[in-house]
């Protein structure tokens, strides 16, 4: 099973890099860009076939290591 986890700054936390990318895209001519948030993507191989068990592990590692829940949100995708 594979865990795909995405970690981004929470909406209310300023994301200066996202802002700069947003502005740069606009400068490049992409006028219809509304907003950019930058994040991190993790591709994790897991030796586990049971989906619900994998989900529990994924939740745990996102909370304990991959994100700082004070300022970041995470999403998990299992495949």
């Amino acid at each position, binding site marked *: 099973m594979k865990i795909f986890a995405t970690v981004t700054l929470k909406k209310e936390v300023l994301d*200066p890099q996202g802002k700069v990318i947003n502005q740069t895209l606009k400068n490049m001519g992409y006028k219809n860009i509304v907003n950019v948030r930058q994040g991190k993507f993790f591709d994790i191989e897991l030796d586990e076939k049971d989906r619900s068990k994998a989900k529990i592990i994924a939740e745990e590692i996102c909370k304990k290591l991959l994100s700082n829940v*004070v300022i970041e949100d995470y999403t998990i995708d299992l495949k």
Partner: protein
Amino acid sequence: MKSCVIVFPGSNCDRDVAVALEKFQIKNQMVWHAESDLPKSDLVVLPGGFSYGDYLRTGCIASKSKIINDVIRHARSGRLVLGICNGFQILIEAGLLPGVLLRNKKLRFISKNVFLKVVNTNSKFSSNYNKKSIIKLPIAHNEGNYFAENKIIEKLESENLIAFKYCDKKGEVNEVDNPNGSSNNIAGIFNKEKNILGMMPHPERLVDPLLSGMDGSLMFESLAKSH
């Protein structure tokens, strides 16, 4: 008084702080992060640097080191822990202090001397600062922008757990002299029991007139006499 300085891969202020501790007759030992037990010590110092190259988040990987379990036990037993710069970031990632240190507001690494107001002198780290309440110390960081939810900031203020605030040379705390965008100009905080101090400025760099100042030495004097 006995201390130990934890050394992580990428620590670079570990020897500076050891020199500062020993200058004030604190008997110090260096401890590698992969050890599981601390030597008998009254004070544990997490030094500045770039542990693990700041991978994932600053201080994050170091906060999961083997030795940290014993540092947490040491802290919970009421003994002293000092985290400077990257050490402050590690304390936060280890959950020993609240909040988070974000990237500097202006996205630049800042290396300069700043003025600090000593907000609370009623601690084992800061008691000697009653002689001098506006000090100058160097900062050198990219992630020093202290942030926490309002409830936590209010609690730090009302319970007098802020150790240092960035200010101007007269001690006035204002936006202009906030180098990194920290909430309420916070440069260092205590835990509730005030046995843990995390701070971004580097007191260990100013402990000798030859190094252009002595403002850091008051902290090590405070620590030395606290025991």
